[in-house]
């Protein structure tokens, strides 16, 4: 059903970045809205177990945001926002305030109401990048492998 949209991930050995590519059966305008509107964002961004709370989310060029998953806070600035096309933002986890990721979300119109999303996270050190990805791994462990496998099998 959605298996043809499998997420692709690249962890670059030369530059400390992670790049995710994924296609959606929806036009760029809708995929953009799901990212830009906090009321929609909370419905999909956070892991299901954690409660996502948005303090503010001003998704426009020069705007800023802060949200939390339970006790973990995240904040950043929107540097460039072009509806249905592009979101460039910074991202900091409050538990590691010296670290900042530069995130670039590009939406490509594939026609027929489909969109390719390319999300790139760039940090300043390989250690930072690896810790960033490893934190996702820990979260995956908490979610429970079996549940994840079930979900992926369905």
């Amino acid at each position, binding site marked *: 059903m959605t298996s043809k*949209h499998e997420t692709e991930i690249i962890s670059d050995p030369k530059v400390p970045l992670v790049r995710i590519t994924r296609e959606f059966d929806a036009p760029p305008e*809708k995929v953009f*809205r799901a990212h830009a*509107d906090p009321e929609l964002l909370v*419905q999909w961004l956070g892991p299901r177990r954690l409660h996502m709370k948005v303090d503010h989310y001003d998704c426009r060029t020069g705007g800023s945001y802060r949200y939390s998953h339970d006790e973990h806070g995240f904040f950043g600035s929107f540097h460039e*926002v072009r509806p249905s096309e592009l979101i460039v933002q910074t991202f900091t986890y409050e538990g590691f305030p010296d670290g900042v990721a530069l995130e670039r979300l590009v939406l490509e119109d594939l026609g027929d109401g489909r969109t390719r*999303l390319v999300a790139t996270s760039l940090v300043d050190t*390989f250690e930072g990048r*690896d810790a960033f990805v490893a934190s996702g*791994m820990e979260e995956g462990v908490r979610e429970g492998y079996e549940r994840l496998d079930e979900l992926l099998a369905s």
Partner: protein
Amino acid sequence: MAADPLSKVFSALGDPIRRDIVARLAVADATVNELAGPYDVTVQAVSKHLKVLEDAGLVSRTRDAQRRPVHLEAEVFDLMTKWIERYRLQAEERYRRLDELLRRMPDTADPHSAATRTGRGRTPQSPDTDPRTKKGRAS
């Protein structure tokens, strides 16, 4: 924590000659001299590259044998693959939630929505016009 050894692996693979050495060792073990053959560098330079790969746990050299062939430690790649795969699965799970949301979302934004300022105010936003989520609300 897995981050530190993995950082070493990634920086070790940041060099094209070292990546090439790894690719060749994936086929078969080889001595330093054999590995140095195709490159326009000294055996000493190749030894330095091997030292970096060895420190990262990517290759090992047998102590006893005269030839001391270099061996690729394949399980390090398993660790790397698992680590990235977990991250990928997490992203995939997140984007499946987004798939589901996109199916529920109306094709056009609701101009009466409270979130109309989002996206520089050019694109009116719809927070939620899905009948299933509305059901739960008192309004």
